[in-house]
């Protein structure tokens, strides 16, 4: 039996990390994307630099279902260490490609094996030992191009683009590609029933990661200071900001930077620098992951209480503690929403694809400035580090930055007495001044200790309670400013609803279609921000039963909804996945089916 399919399959690569495979696998995916079919490459890498098993999964799906799907159709198994486990994942009728320089019996009759002696071929063709190793990877890309009947020229262009400026390298790379391609043309002509046919489903799409997009969004959003400390999976967000800034933010003539990029000594310092810069009127941000958020929590409380705008990207990884640094989770919801001791609440923005990462990065700075408080943008490893087929970035040149309530020298001249923490407008948001604005007016003392409307230190507890109560009002104001939820339907038509958020979106779209096919009518809402606004509460109100889909153990979003909304908990049913892999559509539909039918689900939570 052979699996037969056009533009709809999952291919997985098993390699050894540090061997250059990720970029070859990425190239394979990009080739499919350029053929006009949406792809979702996912790099499943170890927390180590070299020598350990690493995998790379690419879902190819013309309909645009790009969530993870279990069951592999094609397996490129290049790592003998993991053969055993790898082969098990292959569906019956699937295809196994392996390096037959060392022949092997896989003990499965129900799969199709394509043998290619890659090492031997590379040893024949190349003399440099590094190249011999590296080019095996391009070899199997060539093979895939052949058996999937793809346009080889796409890959040749990709190679040419990659080595622009180092043209000498183009030829050996193309040669490597051809090794596999030609071998397959000779040996596997018409063997494989999975095909990639050119299509146009990627029109208007780009292939990029959430971190890359968010970093770019920070450039467009006017961030000028980035202070960070390296941590997987957030590092590439800061690096993206730096890369794009170096390209587009250098003063012509002086060659000086219109940005400051600082690798801090740790996360506490990174957050302190971010707060200091924002206090002084620059848009500044930091990016980190769980352990960093824990370390920053004292500072987050300062920014909350002293009302300093702050933007923090938390690219979530598997927790708790150091946990699974190279796996994905959505398990920092509570620690982000309630970060720091005392009564605190923070704005969360939760994008679901790279396009939204770009948009929300821009919006985060507007919200932080407008609300004078920390804004935490929650990504996760899957969204942040993997490339997604996402809508093109857009920018309206009429956009303006909302710098919030900042008093200029002229404003101050017109004011009798400036009160930094006075609620002048009744929205809970006071006015601020930047240092150095006015020679006589507007200076004040920023502090994390109790203060009055004029920023004076006070130990009057009632006064302090007033300030705390104003912060509640400000948070209410925030709920009308943050992005609204997105609904799958124009009008609710079911008594059941699904609530989901973030990177789950891609599996959810598929799940909803499957449920629809199964005649299960269910409304769906994607939460995009905290505090929850009226539309969120109305949706919850409107339904008797709500599934909340989360990639964590404790149902943290459910907790947040109950805590904030006074929602009857019985109607909130968790669907959880916390094994570090992105949730699948199947997982979701199985759980829903099980709940509806009263039978246990087929997938373990």
């Amino acid at each position: 039996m052979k699996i037969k399919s056009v533009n709809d399959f999952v291919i997985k690569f098993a390699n050894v990390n540090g061997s250059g495979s990720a970029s070859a696998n990425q190239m394979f995916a990009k080739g499919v994307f350029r053929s006009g079919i949406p792809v979702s490459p996912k790099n499943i890498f170890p927390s180590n630099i070299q020598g350990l098993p690493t995998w790379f999964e690419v879902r190819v799906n013309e309909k645009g279902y790009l969530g993870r799907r279990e069951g592999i159709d094609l397996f490129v198994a290049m790592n003998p260490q993991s053969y055993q486990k790898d082969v098990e994942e292959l569906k019956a009728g699937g295809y196994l490609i392996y390096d037959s320089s060392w022949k092997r019996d896989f003990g499965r009759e129900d799969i199709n094996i394509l043998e290619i002696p890659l090492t031997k071929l590379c040893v024949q063709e190349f003399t440099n030992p590094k190249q011999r190793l590296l080019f095996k990877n391009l070899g199997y890309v060539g093979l895939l191009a052949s058996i999937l009947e793809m346009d080889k020229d796409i890959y040749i262009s990709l190679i040419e683009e990659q080595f622009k400026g180092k043209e000498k390298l183009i030829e050996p790379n193309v040669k490597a590609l051809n090794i596999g391609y030609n071998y397959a043309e000779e040996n596997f002509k018409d063997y494989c029933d999975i095909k990639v046919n050119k299509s146009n489903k990627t029109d208007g799409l780009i292939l990029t990661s959430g971190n890359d997009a968010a970093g770019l969004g920070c450039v467009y959003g006017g961030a000028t200071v980035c202070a960070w400390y390296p941590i997987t999976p957030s590092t590439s967000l800061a690096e993206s900001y730096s890369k794009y800034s170096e390209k587009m933010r250098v003063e012509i003539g002086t060659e000086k930077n219109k940005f400051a990029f600082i690798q801090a000594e740790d996360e506490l310092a990174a957050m302190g620098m971010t707060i200091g810069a924002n206090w002084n009127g620059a848009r500044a941000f930091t990016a980190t992951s769980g352990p960093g958020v824990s370390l920053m929590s004292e500072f987050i409380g300062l920014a909350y209480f002293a009302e300093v705008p702050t933007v923090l990207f938390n690219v979530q990884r598997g927790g708790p503690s150091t946990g699974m640094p190279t796996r994905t989770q959505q398990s920092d919801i509570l620690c982000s929403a309630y970060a720091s001791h005392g009564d605190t609440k923070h704005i969360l923005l939760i994008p679901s694809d790279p396009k939204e990462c770009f948009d929300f990065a821009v919006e985060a700075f507007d919200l932080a400035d407008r609300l004078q408080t920390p804004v935490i943008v929650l990504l996760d490893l899957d969204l942040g580090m993997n490339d997604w087929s996402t809508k093109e970035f857009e920018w309206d040149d009429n956009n303006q930055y909302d710098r919030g309530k900042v008093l200029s020298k002229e404003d101050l001249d017109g004011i009798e007495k400036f009160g930094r923490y006075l609620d002048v407008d009744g929205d809970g948001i006071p006015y601020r001044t930047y240092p150095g604005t006015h020679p006589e007016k507007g200076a004040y003392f920023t502090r994390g200790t109790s203060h009055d409307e004029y920023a004076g230190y006070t130990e009057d507890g009632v006064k302090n309670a007033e300030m705390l109560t104003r912060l509640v009002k400000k948070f209410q104001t925030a709920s009308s400013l943050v992005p609204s939820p997105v609904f799958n339907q124009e009008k609710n038509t079911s008594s059941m609803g699904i609530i989901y958020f973030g990177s789950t979106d891609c599996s959810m779209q598929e799940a909803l279609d499957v449920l629809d096919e199964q005649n299960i009518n269910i409304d769906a809402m994607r939460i995009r921000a905290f505090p929850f606004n009226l539309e969120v509460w109305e949706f919850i109100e409107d339904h008797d039963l709500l599934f909340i889909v989360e990639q964590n153990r404790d149902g943290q979003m459910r907790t947040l909804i109950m805590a904030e909304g006074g929602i009857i908990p019985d109607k909130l049913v968790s669907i959880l996945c916390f094994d570090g892999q992105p949730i699948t559509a199947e997982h979701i539909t199985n759980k829903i089916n099980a709940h509806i039918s009263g039978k246990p689900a087929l997938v373990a939570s």
Partner: protein
Amino acid sequence: MTYIVKPKNHHPLLEKNELGLTRRDYEGAVSTLCAGCGHDSISSAIVEACFQLSIESYKVAKLSGIGCSSKAPAYFLNQSHGFNSVHGRMPSIATGAAMANHELLYLGISGDGDSASIGIGQFIHCARRQLNMTYIVENNGTYGLTKGQFSATNDLESKSKYGDDNLFPSIDLPSMAIQLGASFVARSFSGDKEQLVPLLKAALSHKGFSFLDIISPCVTFNNHNTSTKSYDYIREHNDALSRPDFVPSGKEILTDYPKGSTVDVPLHDGSLLSLEKISENYDPADKIKAIQNIQESQRDGKVLTGLLYADPEAKDLKEILNVSDKPLNEMDLNDLCPGSEKLKDINSGLK
């Protein structure tokens, strides 16, 4: 030894500086520190230095951590913005602030608890980054605000007010700062305004990381006779390297020290720190020697004060990072946003 020699001519409070301001204009709120606290003397030295330099208060940002010392910024320069942050983290706040606008003058006030314990990492890395700021540690060898625990700058020989022995050697912040890249490092004593004010003026005029370790007795918890940070102890063990005089840029050098006995340290803006040599060991340009001096005097039970090290040529963080001259916080969308056309290019690059 230079102090106790009171300033010769008494300046009336109402004397005016170049900006037409009086000392009063540089004052802050009424101090809530204990009567006699060294920190208050430092505040008044800062007032004096800023007055003499004709600094515009609103172009100064006062930053601090948490502690009695960290409260001090409220007690000078009322017209400056202040940021009383969290314990030990002033340096990172200062770094971010200075990146946002390099045109202000950044004055950080910290305590020995704030800087040598919880904040030692930020202190070190701020010095290493050569941030253009003046960083003052008001060093009393104790945790004043939490009622007298030993700090890490307390000396091994010292005892607490209640008779407990300090069990651990002291951390010497000046030698650390020199080692790490600070380009202006001095030590002084809150009770010695004649030495302190010129040093402060020079530090404020210096471009780069200026660090001042100012011994500042805590009258409530660390001024007993078994303390090595008491007024009496410091007066007795102070070993001044030099008698400093500060000459602002464009002014004639007028010191009354005998010729040949002075060293002049020219600062980047053309002003001069003119120093009368008291100690022979004195050469403020030699990093390794400076550290050695400090350590030898410490070994010998002396407290070396004066300008310990200066490198007037040093770069500061803004230059190192090649940040543009227009302050980042003044840039608007036109300066910062690459616009829709560039985004189209980026989109095509991601196909």
